[in-house]
């Protein structure tokens, strides 16, 4: 341990580590996000939206690791996520809640060459404000119908130039810029969360809420089915159970050819639908002078 070496460390670094250590000690969760090449203005937007929920800081990996060690984090578990340029999000929230929150921010940007559209790219009808000139041929290439009015380019009708997932034609970039159309989403890439000594990697951290929604639906459906099957004694379930018992009784009556005024419709319908099915199966070869009802033919 050399006192001399420590002196070499600039004060801002010492302060930074102290500040990071403080944040780590006061937060149940820290999330590491990849911000390599991430637009600074968008990062600012995110920081603003996270205010009062989480604190986001872009800092040097080495400083973070020192602070993490001092704050008592299990740094070994984290090290593999600490490379490149990272933002660190400190929060006391459930890390999944932060992940969901971030996924809800629709941050958009103008396309760069090679980008695919995240939403429909439509050039709207009307005055583009662009002066007629070489740009007209670009519109032409994009198959956007235009006319010139008072020296300005007017788009004749709303024109789709890319569907979600389609590559955005690079030549469209200046037009989209001019019209303020940002069809590409910017999303913060989360690498991992460290929460109460657990490391949650990105694949787990990114929740598909729809999947949970359908699991709830599935569980609810199965529960109802089971409730119906065992005649779970609450009125709403029993209504369905009774409907099903009645339907079964009708089906049995129909199959047995058991006719009562109540079952006659069902029984005869069933017999007739069988007859029509047979008729329809041979209708190409035999003309019995009977038409197969349209509904059955299909």
């Amino acid at each position, binding site marked *: 341990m050399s006192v001399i070496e420590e002196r070499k460390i600039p004060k801002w670094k010492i302060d930074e580590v102290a500040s990071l250590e403080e944040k780590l000690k006061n937060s149940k969760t820290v999330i590491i996000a990849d911000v390599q090449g991430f637009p600074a203005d968008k990062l600012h937007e995110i920081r603003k939206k996270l205010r009062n929920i989480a604190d986001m800081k872009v800092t040097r990996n080495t400083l973070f690791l020192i602070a993490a060690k001092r704050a008592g984090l299990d740094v070994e578990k984290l090290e593999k996520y600490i490379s490149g340029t990272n933002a660190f999000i400190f929060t006391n929230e459930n890390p999944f809640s932060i992940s969901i929150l971030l996924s809800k921010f629709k941050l958009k940007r103008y396309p760069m060459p090679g980008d695919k559209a995240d939403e429909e790219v439509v050039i709207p009808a009307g005055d583009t404000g662009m002066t007629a000139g070489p740009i007209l041929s670009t519109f032409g290439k994009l198959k956007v119908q235009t006319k010139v009015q008072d020296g300005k380019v007017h788009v004749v009708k709303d024109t789709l130039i890319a569907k979600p997932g389609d590559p955005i034609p690079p030549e469209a970039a200046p037009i989209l810029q001019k019209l303020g159309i940002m069809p590409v989403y910017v999303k913060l890439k989360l690498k991992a969360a460290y929460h109460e000594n657990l490391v949650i990697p990105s694949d787990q951290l990114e929740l598909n809420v729809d999947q949970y929604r359908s699991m709830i639906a599935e569980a609810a459906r199965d529960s109802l089915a089971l409730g119906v099957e065992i005649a779970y004694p609450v009125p709403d379930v029993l209504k369905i159970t009774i409907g099903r018992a009645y339907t079964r009784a009708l089906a049995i009556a129909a199959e047995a*050819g058991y006719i009562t*005024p109540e079952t*006659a419709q069902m029984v*005869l*319908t069933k*017999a007739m639908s069988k*007859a029509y099915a047979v008729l329809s199966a041979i209708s190409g070869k035999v003309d019995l002078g009977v038409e197969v009802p349209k*509904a059955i033919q299909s």
Partner: protein
Amino acid sequence: MEYIYASLLLHAAKKDITEDAIKAVLNAAGVEVDEVRVKAVAAALKEVNIDEVIKNAAAMPVAAVPAGG
């Protein structure tokens, strides 16, 4: 379903659906006739407006399942 097909056949042929008529058809088909069932079917059909039922049956949206399956 023999009793029902016999009844529908008689109906399609515009004959009365009596016990005797049903029996005759079933006998011709080589079916051993159960008197009780013939009685039951003939009695039950007397209470049913077959024309109405058949009209409903034909009008029903039955196309949910492709016939060819």
